[in-house]
């Protein structure tokens, strides 16, 4: 019987395998950031261990960094300490660091692919759940905790239970791909499979609807695999993948011959089977807006907010969850999504802060102004994205429309740097999580695509972007 892409990558990385034991898996690339690594480095020091492969380990700072003027000192002392600690750890253990002043600094999941560090068929880990992003290149990319970070630093391996396989097949063609985006596809998938639908599995996204996507769009899809509970998400590499990685700063020298070998091997065999399957037809899908406090609580932009009964299908906990979510979000069932007014707009995060995201959002706002009641910001995913956008004049379009144009970082995705919502503020956000307090204590998050966020900034409420001329 044939094998899936996941199984092929897994098997080619087994160091030790025994019945009824976990497999010891070799890790090709380890990405490190300032928040989940300090205790791991402390552990190495305590046990007199070195980093086994500093040459396969790359670090940057993204979670804590302010996105305002980089020439100013960091005011939050605990953030400053965590950032300084990463600098010290990288120096002591010989790890390459893209620090706050590096032209390559950025969100770890944005810079990996941009620098050619993320490669098809490789295993990649990072102490961050959104590591699944790198699966867009046909890599097996896993988010791990700090104990596992320490284990990889020390041994370049991990003891892992082999996950199950889950095929998510995306069929059809979007009639308006500028209005219905990759974000809307992945939110639709999570709405259908649920936030635990992928638990214990690695998703492979397949089908015409995936093949048609650009690399930036595929990263948005794989990024949110974790929001569907999956261990990782991946997409088989194709010519778009190979072209994207050509001539990047860290692309291997023997790239051509690597591509030849990937073309033969990195695909699911036609007779392979998956443990689970879900099919989404995207011919008629609408822009998506989350209304609740997990990414599965999402509906079409032209729908009313469902009642807890409609949402829960008879499940008592689901119903209670929806009731609590509506209370936290200060929303009522039956309210049309387009009638929800917003206070803030955040275009950023490892989900949607790449160049194409900014290009698409800029088309919406060109020549217009953010409505006076709304505060809107754009935070490019990396310094490279920022430079590329500025070369195209996108910064001017955003600034002229009264958006703030910021330095690269995780910013308002997760409320651990100065960019946070105030209690009660409502935000149209291109990030990945609408959990209670995620963007700041008491803040209310609606997950949307960059074009939906941009249109909301101009209008002060959600707008069905299919009604706008976007071509």
């Amino acid at each position: 019987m044939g094998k899936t892409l996941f199984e092929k990558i897994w098997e080619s990385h087994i160091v030790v395998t025994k019945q009824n034991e976990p497999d010891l898996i070799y890790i090709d690339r380890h990405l490190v950031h300032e928040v989940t690594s300090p205790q791991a480095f402390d552990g190495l020091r305590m046990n007199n261990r070195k980093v086994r492969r500093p040459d396969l380990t790359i670090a940057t700072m993204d979670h804590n960094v302010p996105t305002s003027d980089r020439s100013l000192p960091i005011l939050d002392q605990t953030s400053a300490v965590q950032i300084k600690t990463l600098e010290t750890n990288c120096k002591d253990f010989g790890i390459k660091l893209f620090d706050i002043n590096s032209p390559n600094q950025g969100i770890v999941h944005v810079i990996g692919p941009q620098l050619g560090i993320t490669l098809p068929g490789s295993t990649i880990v990072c102490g961050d759940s959104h590591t699944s992003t790198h699966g867009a290149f046909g890599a097996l990319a896993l988010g791990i905790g700090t104990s596992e970070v320490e284990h990889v630093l020390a041994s370049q391996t991990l003891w892992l239970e082999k996950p199950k396989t889950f095929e998510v097949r995306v069929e059809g063609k979007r009639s308006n791909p500028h209005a219905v985006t990759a974000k809307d596809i992945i939110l639709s998938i999570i709405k259908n499979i649920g936030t635990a639908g992928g638990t214990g599995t690695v998703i492979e996204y397949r089908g015409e609807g995936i093949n048609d996507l650009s690399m930036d769009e595929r990263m948005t899809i794989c990024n949110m695999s974790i929001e569907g509970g999956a261990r990782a998400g991946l997409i088989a590499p194709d010519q778009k993948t190979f072209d994207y990685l050509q001539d990047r700063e860290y692309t291997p020298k023997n790239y051509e011959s690597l591509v030849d070998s990937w073309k033969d091997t990195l695909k699911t065999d036609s007779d392979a089977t998956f443990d689970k399957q879900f099919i989404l037809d995207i011919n008629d899908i609408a822009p998506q807006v989350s209304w609740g406090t997990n990414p599965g609580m999402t509906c079409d932009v032209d729908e009313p907010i469902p009642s807890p009964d409609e949402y829960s299908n008879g499940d008592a906990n689901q119903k209670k969850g929806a009731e609590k979510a509506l209370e936290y979000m200060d929303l009522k069932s039956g309210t049309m999504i387009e009638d929800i007014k917003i206070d803030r707009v955040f275009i950023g995060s490892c989900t949607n802060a790449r160049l194409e995201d900014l290009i698409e959002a800029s088309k919406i706002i060109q020549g217009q102004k953010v409505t006076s009641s709304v505060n809107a910001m754009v935070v490019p995913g990396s310094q490279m994205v920022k430079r590329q956008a500025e070369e195209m004049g996108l910064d001017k379009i955003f600034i002229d429309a009264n958006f703030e144009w910021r330095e690269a970082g995780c910013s308002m995705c997760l409320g651990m740097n100065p960019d946070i919502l105030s209690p009660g503020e409502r935000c149209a956000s291109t990030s990945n999580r609408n959990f209670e307090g995620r963007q700041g204590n008491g803040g209310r998050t609606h997950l949307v695509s960059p074009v939906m966020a941009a249109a909301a900034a101009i209008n002060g409420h959600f707008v069905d972007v299919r009604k706008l001329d976007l071509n």
Partner: protein
Amino acid sequence: MKGNIIKYARDNIDTDVIIPGQYLKVHDYAELATHAMEGLDPDFHSKVKEGDFILSGKNFGCGSSREHAPIALSHCGVKAILALSFARIFYRNSVDGAFLLPIEIDQDAYDGISEGDEIDIDVSKNEIKNITKNQTYKMKPFSEIIGKIIAAGGLFKYKPDQD
């Protein structure tokens, strides 16, 4: 292992409410513990006692990979989480650092156990006794692999069987 139950009858308790992002910069575990569950239940720290168990619904610990989540709970004295299901990264983090036991329960246990009940968990028999109500439930056994990591006392103490 005996303890009393703190029950959160809901699904999808995420790591952002277990330990909000602003505290991920806190290096001192005792201080981290004072903010555990702050996003969900501001009274948690005043009511939790050494040896307590948390009971909850499906997909406990979903979201971020922050190991701070099981660390904060364990440094409050929480010894086990009983839930209908767990998000995988939280589950592994709990076991890897030997912070607490993630125990998967069935609907009978979830419905039968109430806030404050005294519970006795016997991992060797995969059994949960409700001392308060004199009921017994089954727990889902740990996979062989997870059981071995738990028995070893965490990821760094685990060694595969030598044969």
